[in-house]
């Protein structure tokens, strides 16, 4: 395996299955009173976040600590980044301190891939621009598998700003490797036709009802105004045509689940009722995030 985790695209099915199985082992630990293992005792993990993130950074930090590793987190503001140091120089400096892994989030697509070519330390991608967010797709798969026997043959709708979503890309790569039928849905300006070439089994639609019909899983994406480089749709009418409301759920399978990578925008991409809906598994995703990241850290460093 590659010394690190840059994306889902380059993983094969067996590697993904191994991580998901190991994450399952870690699930009970999350609710134990003593949550700490010593698998990675003495190991040092650097969390380098060039982009604001509370949940992913915290999740990686907790995962590292539950495995007994030491973790330091660096955010872009207040570091050498704001003093104009280049990315390569910053990373070389960090690498010289011999961390066992660098967990990195960056607003530029491919930034971790570029660094991986020049650095000795393994890099775990915690989200790069509009490219991939591999641990999110892994925790989403873990969450689905907690409720379904297998991914094979499921129908998954992913709805929202697909063009700018790293969550969507990683999920498409993962789900397609397991024979999932994937429907991507959003306004055409956020749904480039080339998305259909991303992986086998991908269909596109601009109609939310068509996307949801007979779905086993509905993944809503955050409408990321911060990643919108230009006006691709009128924000005022987004919810009316692409927001998920309770009545939509009648079109899906009776036991369909609703997912969201968070943080949610109530009233923008989904209604408040849907967010609190009994088959909404948004908080289970958060919980699985720690177990999945423990499995990834153990695999990369252990």
């Amino acid at each position: 395996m590659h010394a690190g985790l840059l994306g889902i695209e380059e993983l094969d099915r067996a590697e993904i299955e191994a991580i998901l199985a190991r994450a399952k082992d870690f699930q009970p630990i999350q609710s134990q009173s003593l949550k700490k293992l010593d698998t990675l005792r003495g190991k040092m993990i650097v969390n380098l976040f060039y982009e604001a993130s509370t949940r992913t950074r915290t999740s990686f930090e907790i995962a590292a600590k539950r495995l007994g590793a030491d973790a330091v987190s660096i955010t872009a503001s207040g570091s050498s980044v704001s003093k104009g140091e280049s990315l390569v120089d910053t990373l070389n400096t960090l690498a010289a301190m011999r961390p066992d892994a660098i967990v990195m989030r960056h607003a530029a697509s491919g930034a971790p891939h570029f660094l991986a070519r020049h650095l000795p330390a393994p890099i775990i991608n915690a989200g790069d621009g509009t490219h991939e967010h591999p641990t999110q797709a892994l925790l989403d798969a873990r969450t689905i598998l907690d409720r379904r026997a297998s991914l094979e043959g499921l129908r998954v709708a992913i709805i929202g700003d697909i063009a700018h979503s790293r969550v969507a890309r990683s999920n498409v790569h993962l789900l397609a490797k397991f024979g999932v039928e994937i429907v991507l849905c959003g306004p055409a300006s956020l749904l480039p036709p080339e998305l259909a070439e991303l992986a086998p089994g991908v269909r596109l639609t601009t109609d939310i009802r068509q996307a949801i019909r007979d779905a086993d899983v509905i993944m809503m994406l955050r409408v990321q105004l911060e990643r919108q480089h230009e006006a691709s749709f009128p924000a005022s009418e987004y919810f009316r045509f692409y927001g998920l409301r309770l009545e939509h759920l009648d079109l899906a399978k009776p036991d369909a689940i609703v997912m969201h990578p968070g943080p949610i925008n109530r009233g923008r991409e989904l209604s408040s009722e849907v967010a609190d809906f009994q088959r909404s598994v948004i908080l289970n995703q958060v919980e699985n995030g720690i177990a999945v990241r423990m499995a990834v850290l153990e695999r990369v460093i252990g």
Partner: protein
Amino acid sequence: MAILIRNGRVLDPASRTDRVADVLIVEGCIAGVAAGLSAPKAEVIDASGMIVAPGFIDMHVHLREPGFEHAETIESGSRAAAAGGFTSICCMPNTKPVNDSATVTSYIVERARSQAVVNVFPIGAVTKGSAGEELAAIGAMKAAGAVAISDDGQPVTNSRVMRRAMEFARSYDLPVIDHCEDLGLSAGGDMHEGAQSVRWGLRGIPSAAEDTMVARDLLLAELTGARCHIAHISTRNAVAMVAHARRHGIAATCEATPHHFTLSDREMAAYDSNYKMKPPLRGPADRAAVAAGLASGAIDAIATDHAPHPGSEKMQEFERCPFGIIGLETAVALALEELVRPGRISLSRMVELFTTGPESVMRLGRGTLAPGAPGDVTVFSTGVSWTYDVNQSFSRSRNSPFDGRAFRGGPMVTVVNGQVVWRRA
């Protein structure tokens, strides 16, 4: 001092010559082309098994001097040109200061006279500072040595300004070279918009960003009667539009780069800035259309768009890296490998694309081995095996996607005004 190049296959499309012969250069000029020439005091170059052609012309390079000497100088760029088989190069005006006045043009001409090993012809800016508003002193630049005008890299957005520029250039019989890019459509883009950009999550530059401006320029060329030259053409629609315009009598010409006929976005290494340039590497169908255009005559010239950037600028996140790659030293080998060897074009057509093609646009008075012509000669081989090592480049920059590539065929000896300026080691 005389030079006698013996026993090569002399290939001079301008004089319809293609036979084994000797070429004699005396006092900087071609003295004769014939079999069995003798010149007792001449330096003899044995070109047996090689091709002897008029000196190659690259009508589109960036020499970065004045202003960006850390990336390239007139001297280093000219040495890279010589090693690539080029005897004449035309340099774009996006220096610092911009070449928008006779003063800067004269500076480049003077520096080239003392520093360059090949002929250097400056291209002047269309507008002052290439800001797209006020016309530059085009007549004065021509008098100082400018051979064309272009706002390459910062294309003129305002169509009225472009119209006036074309009209104005026509009165001096200068070609207007345009880098066709609708800056609104391409804004923020880092590579060709297509399946690959969507996969990598990189913002795309659609083909339409080039096509809309090519269409505008062709219509303005018809309106003004100016000579309009489309730089680094890269899309199938643009190639078709130029061909269409020519059939209707519009004085349009165009060039293509070796990277656009060699690579498509499918061959890019992920997030490697050595594959980042404008226009971007397009889709496979575009690449094929460019190669077909070079064969059919729809495209007039091969030009490198040699664009040096130092390593520090290219060693960044892909979206932060500047656009452009160097290309002088690999152009001839790529043309041989990608166009001639697969049978897409003949050897003679390749020589045209490097000589009479650019000459017909730029009118430098070169590109032929006719007696009395300047003594510029490119000797190349179709068989020599060599590997491009960018760290050995004469350029000051290292930004090439062809580093480490093994080639068969390439330049052997470069003669400029009767002087050997480069010879393969």
